[in-house]
């Protein structure tokens, strides 16, 4: 018996060995096949079970004012979405959601009944609304994290900054013009999830996909001063609207652009579309008597005139061809200085007759009229200045006092700033730098001189003339400041109606100037549209100029001229010294 067992033992071991070898070889072959030929397919299948891909858009950059105070920021919000195919009782779900979100039940129910896999219930919901919907514990409702734009200063510089749409795309102003720089880039990342579906290790990269920041030249405080004064001027004169611009004449940096009525960019859709655009840049106006400044500039620079050159002002009525030009008050002989100071239309026409239309045209072109300034804002108008070759005799006369020509408020203030800046025209700019999320400068915008419009000597003569406007008997006396010298010019332009004729009783009242005259720090333009109380620029706009200038110079720590040096000294450490 034992012999039989030992006789077949080797044979049986060999058989079992073969079977095992065959099985292991089969397993090995299958493993090899799976590992070598099917590895990528299997890896993909496995990763789909524990990896969850996410796609996000980097945060939009911040817009700062000149002192790095936030003007436009991106905040995290939650949007509520629904998956209609998962809803069992549409009416009940719609009712619960409508109650929690305070939205129309019928509209929501109709949208939930649509055969779509996904619908937005409410974009950018408030935290209170999100909590209310979360408490409903609805499986068919999802919460998606988004970023939305918020303007903490509300109406301040609203038209300049502009706004973004629901999807974060810039629609107006700086938001639109610098959309490519401000917007963040798309990025994808993968989150690993466990058996319960919880994420447990994200492969989110540390690279910052946020957009760049924009630093404006606008100063929030000066902007507020300007908006406040403009609002008061519009309200006091029962006017339709108003525009005011403050510029640094030496650099061309815009310190503020105000527009009234304003809008709140946090809810821009509730405002009239006409309020969306930045009218100081996009809209051309007939400048009116402000143009006499440039008529005088042409006379001094090209017409061999001095401030004392005299012109006969025809006692208030002057015929050119078939047309008659009038002055508000009749004048006899006036010097060039008096023509500007008393704002004589007839005097201005006589000045052009002496200097010639070509000189006036060239001067206007040199000051930048009829062409875009190139400011970094959207929708800029170039205004209109027709060639002097096409001017009739009356055209040269009317253009000399600002009729038959159009310019944007920005063009006017840039041109007046050139006089303040020794005749050098600076390119206006509103963005001074683009920075990254760490605050490091990516690109910088420095002041750019465009051209020498008139000589320095001519600009000094013009400053003397313009200073006389704010003297006691000048048309702009209401703009005179205590402690500072002011150069300026009033403007009262009749508006045209739909037929292109001058409308009765509709005026644009303006005042433009700079201060202090000896070392100009600010140039200011105030333009009030259709005032009904009175329409003279010296009464309507000059007081607003005064308010803006006085408060801005105080804010900028500009020493008043009449202060006796050394009489009052203050130490930062110990206060008043004596």
């Amino acid at each position, binding site marked *: 018996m034992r012999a039989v067992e030992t006789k077949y033992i080797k044979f049986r071991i060999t058989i079992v060995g073969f079977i095992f070898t065959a099985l292991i070889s089969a397993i090995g072959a299958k493993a090899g096949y799976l590992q070598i030929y099917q590895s990528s397919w299997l890896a993909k299948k496995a990763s789909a079970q524990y990896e969850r891909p996410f796609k996000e858009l980097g945060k939009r950059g911040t817009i700062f004012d000149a002192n790095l105070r*936030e003007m436009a920021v991106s905040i995290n919000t939650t949007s509520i979405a629904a998956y209609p195919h998962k809803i069992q009782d549409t009416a009940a779900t719609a009712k619960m959601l409508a109650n929690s979100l305070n939205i129309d039940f019928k509209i929501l129910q109709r949208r939930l009944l649509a055969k779509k896999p996904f619908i937005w219930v409410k974009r950018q919901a408030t935290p209170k609304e999100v909590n209310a919907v979360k408490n409903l514990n609805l499986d068919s409702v999802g919460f998606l994290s988004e970023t939305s734009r918020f303007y903490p200063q509300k109406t*301040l510089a609203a038209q300049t900054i502009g706004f973004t749409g629901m999807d974060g795309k810039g629609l107006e102003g700086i938001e639109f013009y610098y959309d490519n720089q401000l917007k963040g880039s798309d990025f994808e990342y993968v989150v*690993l999830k466990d058996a319960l579906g919880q994420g447990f290790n*994200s492969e989110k990269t540390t690279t910052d996909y946020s957009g760049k920041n924009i630093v404006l030249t606008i100063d929030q405080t000066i902007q507020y001063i300007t908006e*406040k004064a403009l609002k008061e001027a519009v309200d006091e004169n029962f006017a339709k609207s108003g525009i005011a611009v403050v510029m640094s004449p030496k650099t061309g940096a815009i310190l503020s652009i105000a527009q009234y009525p304003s809008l709140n960019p946090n809810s821009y859709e509730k405002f009239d579309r006409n309020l969306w655009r930045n009218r100081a840049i996009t809209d051309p106006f007939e400048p009116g008597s402000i143009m006499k400044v440039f008529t005088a500039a042409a006379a001094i620079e090209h017409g061999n005139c001095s401030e004392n050159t005299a012109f006969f002002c025809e006692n208030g009525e002057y015929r050119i061809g078939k047309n008659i030009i009038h002055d508000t008050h009749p004048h006899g002989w006036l010097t060039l200085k008096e023509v500007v100071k008393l704002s004589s239309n007839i005097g201005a026409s006589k000045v052009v007759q002496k200097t010639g239309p070509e000189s006036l045209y060239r001067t206007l072109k040199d000051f930048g009229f009829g062409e875009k300034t190139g400011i970094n804002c959207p929708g800029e108008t170039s205004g209109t200045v027709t060639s002097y070759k096409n001017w009739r005799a009356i055209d040269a006369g009317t253009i000399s006092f600002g009729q038959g020509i159009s310019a944007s408020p920005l063009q006017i203030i840039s041109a007046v700033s050139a006089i303040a800046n020794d005749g050098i025209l600076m390119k206006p700019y509103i963005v001074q730098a683009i920075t990254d999320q760490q605050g490091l400068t990516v690109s910088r915008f420095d002041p750019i001189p465009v051209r020498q419009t008139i000589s320095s000597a001519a600009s000094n003569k013009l400053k003397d003339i313009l200073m006389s406007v704010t003297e006691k008997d000048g048309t702009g006396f209401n703009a005179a400041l*205590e*402690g500072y010298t002011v150069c300026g010019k009033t403007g009262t332009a009749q508006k045209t109606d739909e037929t292109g004729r001058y409308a009765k009783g509709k005026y644009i009242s303006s005042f433009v100037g700079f201060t202090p005259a000896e070392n100009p720090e600010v140039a200011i333009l105030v333009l009030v549209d259709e005032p009904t109380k009175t329409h003279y620029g010296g009464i309507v706009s000059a007081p607003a100029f005064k308010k803006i200038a006085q408060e801005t110079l105080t804010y900028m720590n500009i020493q*008043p001229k*009449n*202060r006796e040096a050394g009489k009052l000294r203050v130490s930062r450490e110990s206060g008043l010294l004596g």
Partner: protein
Amino acid sequence: MRDTKKISRNKKTGLKLAAIWSTIAILFITELFLYTWCRVQCVKTGYEITKETDRRIKLSSLQNNLKVEIAHLKSPQRIAKIATMKLGLIIPTPEKMIIIP
């Protein structure tokens, strides 16, 4: 006598083999435990990273909201309103202005 020696040599070889296999088995099991411990630590750290990342996002969002609130509180409109309405302050006239050197 020769068989006894042969049996004794076989026994020694058997013990030696058993010792080798036991060592291999212990090493294998130890490595198994080490590997499992590493994996557990890895997953645990993964959860902690996710938790901290979420916390960072929440804090960053809170910081952002606080920045917005500061910007709102520092707005010139609000400050001017408090200065004039609550504190009774006015804009100084040039003669009242003191320029700090």
